[in-house]
């Protein structure tokens, strides 16, 4: 089943709706009280909760994606939200969806629980791609609104998500995945799986995703920090907060990355 169809059809199943709400509540429940070390006080902190979307993604697939988006919204609402949360919603949707979806393509015969070097490298690569797209969307959105520079949020989010995904999520996954499988609560157990997109299309999607998100990340960083002033842009766009420049230059690679997700 294609990525977008999966995100749509999961709402037809009551247990998927419940698992979505549970993923969201778990994310918010760990997000709200456990803010461990502030990275930039008032902006972001080291968040153990960022492990939840990754773990839930491997368990519940698209339900975890929506759960991650809603959970972030719930968490933000308890601490005061802003218009940037609109982008946070979609960024977390990607962060909760990509680990499951990318693993379907690159995981091969490996289980996310496998303790081999190859499986762990694939796991880290999967989480990195999810984290970078999440960071791209938030950084792009916040810079587009002129709230915070891409270079600040874009990098902090990658660091934050990767720390939680590499340090905490493997332990949680090892503890929870076998139990969810025994209780037949995995996405594959709950929803009938239609035919997957052809292998070629999925690899093409992955290539587009990688090219798009890395392009967006590099361009967003360089422009918002004032290190790159594209000659084709009018002078008025090349002033802080660089909202116009980020909009014009970062949007196309970001759209490419989203197209890649659709093909996965």
């Amino acid at each position, binding site marked *: 089943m294609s990525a977008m169809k999966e995100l749509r059809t999961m709402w037809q199943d009551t247990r998927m709706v419940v698992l979505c709400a549970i993923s969201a509540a778990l994310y918010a429940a760990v997000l*709200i009280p456990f803010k461990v070390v502030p990275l930039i006080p008032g902006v972001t902190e080291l968040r153990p909760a960022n492990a939840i979307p990754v773990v839930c993604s491997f368990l519940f697939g698209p339900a975890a994606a929506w759960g991650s988006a809603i959970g972030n919204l719930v968490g933000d609402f308890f601490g*005061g939200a802003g218009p940037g949360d609109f982008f946070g919603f979609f960024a977390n949707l990607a962060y909760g969806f990509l680990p499951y979806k990318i693993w379907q393509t690159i995981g091969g015969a490996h289980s996310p629980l496998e303790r081999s070097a190859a499986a762990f490298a694939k796991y880290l690569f999967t989480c990195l791609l999810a984290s970078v797209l999440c960071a791209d969307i938030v950084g792009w959105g916040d810079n587009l609104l002129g709230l915070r520079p891409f270079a600040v949020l874009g990098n902090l989010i990658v660091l934050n998500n990767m720390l939680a995904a590499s340090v905490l999520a493997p332990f949680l996954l090892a*503890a*929870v995945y076998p139990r969810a499988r025994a209780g037949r*609560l995995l996405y594959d157990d709950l929803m009938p799986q239609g035919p997957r997109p052809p292998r070629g299309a999925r690899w093409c999607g992955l290539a587009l995703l990688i090219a798009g998100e890395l392009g967006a990340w590099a361009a967003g960083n360089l422009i918002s920090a004032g290190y790159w002033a594209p000659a084709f842009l009018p002078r008025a766009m090349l002033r802080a907060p660089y909202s116009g420049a980020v909009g014009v230059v970062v949007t196309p690679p970001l759209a490419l990355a989203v197209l890649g997700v659709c093909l996965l």
Partner: protein
Amino acid sequence: MPIYLYLDRATALHRLHPGVKILALFTIFWSIYWLDQPLALAPIGAILLLAAQYSGSWSNFYRLRWLLLLIMFFTAAVWVIFYRQGSPLLMLGPFPISRASLEFGFGRAFKLAELIAATILFLSTTRVEEFAYGLTWMGMPHRIGFAVTLAFRLAPLFIDSALDVVAAQKLRGHDFSRGGPIARMRGYAPVMVPVFMGALRKANNMAMALEARGFGHTNRPTSLVEYRFRPADWLGVLALSALGAGSFLAYLLGYGAINVGE
């Protein structure tokens, strides 16, 4: 642990239609977006302060005061450094500080503080059910609205459960504040696993309970509480339209922009 910001008061702001409250939040975000100068943002700040006073929401502002102050401080600091426009007044290490960068930095700080203040006001006057009702009223599918409401309702239960596990682990001698960031983060695994397992156990029963009550039978379920659009709501829509249009007009006329002076 009290996490909801809703304050039960009998004010006109509380009684507004949920759709109007969401529209108000959107309009305030829209109005703030177009203005950069701290002084130009002052009228919206004044409106928010009056609304906070009228709705009796000060306790929530007090509760989140440090968050607001930290956000203002760091946003101002980041933008003063990143703005790099105008003639430098002084150098802060390698960063030139100009009148324009100071104005812009403080403008951004006020902007973010006002955006958060608007959300605090919204949450102080709006119940979770009203929020979900408003979203559904505006066209969001019922099942998504239900998931949002359920997540809001389950979050405090899971927080309580997590705090119980933290207390139990502390009794066993686990120190959550020991070590560097990585060690601290890893230290949260013993808390999150039991909370996760408790949540998974609930999933099947909750789904069965929902289906037994007819969940999913129709995409247009009736609601126990119905909200009517009253004259006060129309008045609210008019006032919000004026605020949004006024702010956009100010932007078009060049008020509220930072003068770089070059």
